[in-house]
């Protein structure tokens, strides 16, 4: 998208100033860009193409060839009948587990992050810088360090092996990032607006809901994309804390691919992997352009 706009812009400039478009440097530039695009897209191509082939065709050798007979069977198998662990359920129940985990975790961490950012910029208190520093520190703690204490905490809270437990873990880990996003965004938000609302008699939550939130679109999108991708793609917490009925998609995909009985159904694996990546892809496509805009909004003046 940005490539095409910069192309038309510079193309227009070139056109008006020189009257000719293609210099050798420009050809080289495009060649390199196309090469990189192919390099990045090749794995996706291989996955998609082979997920529509019968297994014999893959065994036949040519990974890059288009299917001779198109089939949806691998997709059906991956979704609903493939052997995962001991049961032949397909990825479907695990997909639902992931959905049940990711939606509350994303919403809660975004809302709490927004509230944190609001308090840290507009309701300053003694030591607020330290609180923010500590929250920020949580962004830099490697996941592995907290695995055992976290398991202990979940046990004490009675949330071990549940989806709620996973939501809590992701909420705690995401809060540092979402707070950082919203704090920086709201730091550029004029304090005079908050004061005007105070004179107008609006309280803490009304100011937040009526004045700040309606202006927070871009940063909410940033926070949602960031949290959604991280939580959906998480493997470690899912593998460590989930039980049979709360195993997320990523862990199930691993179980599908690494099950050692029978033949390796590559076409089913490919289809499963695409299914696992699909939700994040959708989130990016739907709101991707806000992502860049939102990331810039904090840096440049909002």
């Amino acid at each position: 998208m940005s490539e095409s706009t910069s192309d038309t812009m510079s193309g227009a400039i070139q056109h008006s100033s020189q009257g000719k478009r293609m210099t050798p440097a420009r050809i080289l530039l495009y060649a390199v860009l196309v090469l990189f695009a192919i390099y990045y897209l090749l794995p996706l191509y291989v996955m998609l193409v082979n997920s529509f082939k019968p297994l014999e065709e893959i065994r036949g050798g040519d990974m890059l060839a288009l299917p001779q007979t198109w089939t949806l069977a691998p997709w059906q198998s991956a979704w609903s009948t493939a052997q995962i662990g001991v049961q032949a359920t397909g990825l479907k129940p695990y997909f639902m587990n992931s959905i049940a985990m990711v939606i509350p975790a994303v919403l809660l961490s975004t809302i709490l992050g927004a509230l944190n950012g609001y308090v840290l910029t507009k309701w300053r208190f003694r030591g607020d810088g330290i609180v923010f520093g500590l929250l920020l520190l949580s962004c830099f703690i490697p996941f592995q360090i907290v695995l055992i204490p976290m398991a202990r905490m979940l046990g004490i809270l009675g949330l071990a092996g549940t989806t709620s437990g996973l939501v809590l873990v992701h909420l705690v880990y995401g809060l540092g990032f979402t707070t950082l996003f919203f704090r920086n965004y709201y730091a550029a938000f004029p304090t005079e607006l908050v004061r005007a609302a105070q004179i107008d008699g609006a309280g803490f939550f009304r100011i937040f809901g009526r004045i700040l939130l309606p202006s927070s679109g871009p940063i909410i999108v940033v926070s949602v994309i960031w949290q959604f991708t991280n939580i959906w793609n998480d493997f470690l917490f899912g593998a460590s804390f989930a039980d049979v009925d709360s195993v997320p998609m990523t862990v199930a995909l691993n179980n599908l691919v690494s099950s050692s009985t029978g033949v390796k159904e590559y076409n089913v694996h490919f289809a499963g992997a695409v299914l696992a990546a699909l939700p994040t892809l959708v989130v990016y496509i739907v709101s991707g352009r806000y992502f860049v805009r939102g990331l810039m909004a904090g840096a440049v003046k909002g």
Partner: protein
Amino acid sequence: MNKTSQHFLEIDSLSKQFAGVDALKDVSIDVEEGGFLVLIGPSGCGKSTLLNMLAGFEPATSGDIRIAGRSIADLHPSKRDIAMVFQSYALYPNMTVAGNIGFGMETRGVPKAERLRKIDEVAAILQIEPLLKRKPAQLSGGQRQRVAMGRALVRDPQAFLFDEPLSNLDARLRVDMRAEIKKLHARLGTTIVYVTHDQIEAMTLATKIAVLKHGEVQQVGTPDDIYHRPANTFVADFMGSPAMNRVTGHLQQSDGTLKLSFGDYSLDLHEPSAALQERARTQPIIDFGIRAENVNDSRDDAMTSTGSSTLPLTIELVEPTGSDTFIGTRDGDAHFTARVANYLHPRPGERINLNFDMSKAHFFDTESGVRVE
């Protein structure tokens, strides 16, 4: 409720410290009901801090604020019965103009019908009816200014607070809006506290001016007081454009006349006050000040008064402003700006006789800067 004092808004020995640094030191100012108080001073003088304390955004370290005898120092901003117009206008970007004006009533639970009626009323006063459905981003600077005033007006408060409301407008619009604020004040009769660093705004709008410096009140008085009888050299230098001419001189009696001499020059004081005569005997070194409009070309008969004294000086700089021409002179240490009629066409390098109207002269103590009269 109105106690013994006839003052409406009372700022009573208000102090404010930020991390041990004095932002305001023992500030006391009273305003009568319906008065227009302008707080003026250079940046960092504490005028905005004082306004924020009146609004309730900053707690006072000590002291009290009363409106109509009722202390408001501990009240939430919404309970003080004040309305504020902010420097940035602070319009809610996601609401329409009508929404902006009505937001306060909405939070107070005023029924919708009454809300709409009041919004229309205020919109009519400010002539912004056609804008009511627009968002702030679709308004010009002057329109935003009006909406911000509308939001304040609709509250019908006991006092308005204005925080440099005109500083974001271009020069022409600023003059227009200044006149509108003055008319609005005359029409509503509500007490106003107004912060600015523009001395023309202060002079034109105020019934009372408070000049602040480093968190301390330098002088409180009517615009006339402040301009014609500045309490010290700071006020004298700060108010008035071009700045007051000032030079350190020496008072001495000679031939029965009190003279002020500096460098090679001397000026006669025709009717010196007792304090100045006393000063000539005890402490003759003194700061002398005179405004440019009281220094004129001696050829300009209309401007020559009986109490004047003349000095020959050389023109260094000529600044025509249309109605008047200001000339700068410099001879050694004697450096003066004078206002002369433009038809005299003064030229740089020309020798000129300047009349000093010594009845309008100001004297200040050289050490303390305090006015002597």
